C-alpha cells in the first residue's frame, strides 16, 4: 500500500498527502482480499473431495448473464463518479440508478440459482463439502454485493434529494473502488467455481 504514497516533495510548501478515504479503502480491500483468499483456497482444496453428490458438474450452470450485468455495473459506477465530478448531478443519479439496477439483477439471479439448487437439486450447505464451500464462498461474495448495493442506494437517494454536490465526488469514488473490488472478486469466484471447479 505504501507504494501509492511515494510522493516526492520538492519543497515543503506543496504539502500533499494521499486521500484519507482512499487509503482506508485500500486497507479494507487488503483485509477483505485475505478473507476471500482463504475461502477460495478452501474451495480449491476441497474440489472433488466430496464423498457424496451432487457434484458441481451436475448442478452448476454458467451464470453468463448475471456476470455481464455485474461487470458492466463497474463501468456505470465509474461514469457516475465522472459526472458528479463534473457537477452534473442529474446524470450522476441516472448512472447510479443503472448501477443499482445491474447489481440488483445479479443478486436476483444468484437468489434464483440458489433456489433451484436447494429445491430442485437438493444441494444445501449440509449436503457435502461442495455445498459447504460453494454456499460459503458465493454467499460471502453476495453479502459484499448486498452491502455495496445498500451504500449505492443511499448515495442514489441522497443524489435524488439533491443533497450531493461535486464536493462529494471523492467519497463516491471511494465507494466505487469498493464496487470495483467486489467485481474483481467475482471474476476470481467465477473462474474458480464455474470454470475450473467444474
Amino acid at each position, binding site marked *: 500500500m505504501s507504494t501509492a504514497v511515494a510522493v516526492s516533495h520538492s519543497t515543503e510548501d506543496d504539502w500533499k*498527502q494521499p486521500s484519507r478515504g482512499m*487509503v482506508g479503502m485500500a486497507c479494507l480491500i487488503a*483485509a477483505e482480499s485475505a*478473507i476471500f483468499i482463504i475461502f477460495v483456497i478452501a474451495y480449491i482444496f476441497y474440489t472433488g*473431495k466430496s464423498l457424496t453428490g451432487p457434484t458441481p458438474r451436475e448442478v452448476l450452470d454458467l451464470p453468463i448473464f448475471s456476470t455481464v450485468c455485474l461487470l458492466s455495473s463497474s463501468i456505470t459506477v465509474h461514469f457516475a463518479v465522472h459526472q458528479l465530478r463534473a457537477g452534473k448531478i442529474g446524470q450522476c443519479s441516472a448512472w447510479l440508478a443503472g448501477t443499482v439496477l445491474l447489481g440488483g439483477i445479479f443478486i436476483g439471479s444468484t437468489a434464483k440459482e440458489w433456489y433451484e439448487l436447494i429445491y430442485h437439486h437438493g444441494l444445501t*450447505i449440509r449436503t457435502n463439502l461442495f455445498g*459447504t464451500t460453494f454456499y460459503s464462498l458465493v454467499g460471502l461474495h453476495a453479502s459484499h454485493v448486498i452491502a455495496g448495493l445498500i451504500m449505492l442506494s443511499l448515495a442514489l437517494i441522497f443524489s435524488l434529494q439533491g443533497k450531493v454536490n461535486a464536493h462529494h465526488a471523492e467519497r463516491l469514488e471511494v465507494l466505487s473502488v469498493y464496487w470495483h473490488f467486489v467485481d474483481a472478486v467475482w471474476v476470481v469466484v467465477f473462474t474458480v467455481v464455474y470454470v475450473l471447479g467444474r
Partner: protein
Amino acid sequence: MATHTPRRHGGVFDVLQEWITTVDHKKIGLMYIGYALIFLVVAGAEALLMRVQLAVPNNHFVSPQTFNRLFTMHGTTMVFFVGMPILFGFGNYLIPLMIGARDMAFPRLNAFSFWISAFGGFLLYFSYLAGSGLYGAGTAPDVGWFAYAPLTSRVFSPGHSTDYWTLSVLLSGVGSIGTALNIVATALTMRCRGMKLSRMPLLVWLYVVTSCIAFIAVSPLTAAQIMLVIDRYLGGHFFDTQAGGSAVLWMHFFWIFGHPEVYILVLPAFAFANEIIPVFSRKAIFGYPAMVAATVAIGFISMGVWAHHMFTVGLGPEANAFFTFSTMVIAVPTGIKIFNWLATMWGGSIRFATPMIFSIGFLFQFLIAGLTGVMLAASPFDWQLGNSYFVVAHFHYVLVGAILFMIFAAFYFWYPKITGRMMSETLGKWHFWLFVIGFHMTFDFMHVPGLLGMPRRIYTYEADRGWGGWNMIVSIGAIFQTAATLIFVYNLIRSYYKGEEAGPDPWDAWTLEWSTSSPPPSYNFAEIPTVHSRRPLWDLKHPDDPDTNYE
C-alpha cells in the same frame, strides 16, 4: 452541529458519558490500555493458578477440566485481549502526537474498533457465568488457544463453550482490523507539514508495518472462524473429517494467522525500543533506513513461516526444508535490528533510568529467545521437542521477556506525557529487579522439564519423572513476577496522585509528542507544527546545530 458546550466535569454520569462518547484518540488509547491491564491481571491470575497446580506432582488444587479452561482462557486472553489492545492503545495514543496530527484519520471508527474488541473480551468471560447456566454443558472454552479441529466440532465440544471462544475472537478480529486500518490511514494521510515518510518516527513506521501484517494475518483467522461457525451452526463440513473435511486445513489457517501474530505483537515492542534507546543513549538511532527495511522484510518473511508450528504434523521433506529455511532467514532482519540498537548505545552516554533498564533487559532476553527459536526452527529438533515445555518456555521468553519488558519500558517512558507526573524511579527499580529475577527463575528453568520430556497442557504428573524440582522453581518465579507486577500497579496509582511534576519534556527527547503539554490538550497542538528533520525537537533545542544539516 458545531456546538459550544463546554466539557462538564461533575457527577459520575458525566464522566461516564464523556468516556463512552469520546472519539479522542488519547482517551480511546487509554481505554485500550486500561482494559488490557484489567485482562492482564485476570489472565495473570489464571497463569498463577496453573503454576500452583503444577508446582508439585500429583496435585489436586484444580480439577483437570478447570485446568483445560485455565490454559485456554490464559492463552486467548493474553493474545487477543491483552497483547493486541495494549499495543493498539499505545499506538492510538502516540501516533497522532508523533506525526503532529490532532486525531486519527477515522475517529468514530476508532471508537467503534475499541468497543467491539472490548465487548469481545466481555463475551469471552461471560462464558464463565452463562456457559453452564443455560445449557449445562461445560462453561468456559477448553479447547486450547489454537482450538485444533476436530476437537471443536459439535461432537467433541457440545454446548456453547467453544462458540464463546469463536465469537469473541471474531469480534476482537473485527476491532483489530478496524484499528489497523485507522493506523495506516493516519500515518499516511495525517502527517504534519514536512513530515515526509523518510522523517516519520520509527515507532510510526513499525506500527504501519504491524498494521499491514494485521490485514493479511488477522483476516484469515476471521475467515477460519466464520468457517467454524458455519460448521457448528449450519452443519457445514469444512473441518469435519467424517465428510471428507480436513483437520490439517484448520491448522494451516490458524497458523497463517498465528505466526504473523507473534510479529504483530513484537513489532510494537521493537517500536518502543526504537524510541526509548536513542533518548537514553543521547544519540540518534543508528541506521534509520536499515531499521525500516528490516521491519518491512520481517513483515514479508513472517507470511512464509507459519508451518514451522506444524513440523510434528508431518509435512514431507520439501515443506520441512522450506519452512526451516524461511524461519532461519527471518533471523537475519531481526539480527540487523539488534545490531542497530547495540550500535545506537555504543559510544552514547547511557542513562540508566527505568525505561532504559527495561529496554536493556529486553535486548538480552530477546537475543536468547531468538536463539532458542532458531533451535526449534530446525525441524528434527522440533520433532523431539514439539509440544513440550521447551516450546512453552521459548514463546514465553518472547512474549514476556521481550514484549512485556518493552511494554513496561513504554509505561515508564510515556506515563509522564499521559498524566503529567513522573513514575517513581525507586519503585521502578524494585519492579525491574524483582521481575527480572522472577522471569529468569520461571522461564529459564522451564526449558529443562521440556528437555526432560514434559508435555505442555498436562494438569499434573507423577513424582518419579524428575520434573518436580524444576516445576517448583518455575512456580516460585511466578510469585516473584506477581509481586513485581503489584509494585508496578501500585506505582501507576501512587504516581498519579503523588508523582513529581513532569513538565512537557522530562526526558529531553526529540519527537513531537514532547512538544505539547503533559497531559496533552484534546486538540494536541494549538498550532500544527512543521518539521524539517527526523528529530524536530532537537532542531528547536539546538538551532545552532540542527539535524537538517545531516539528513
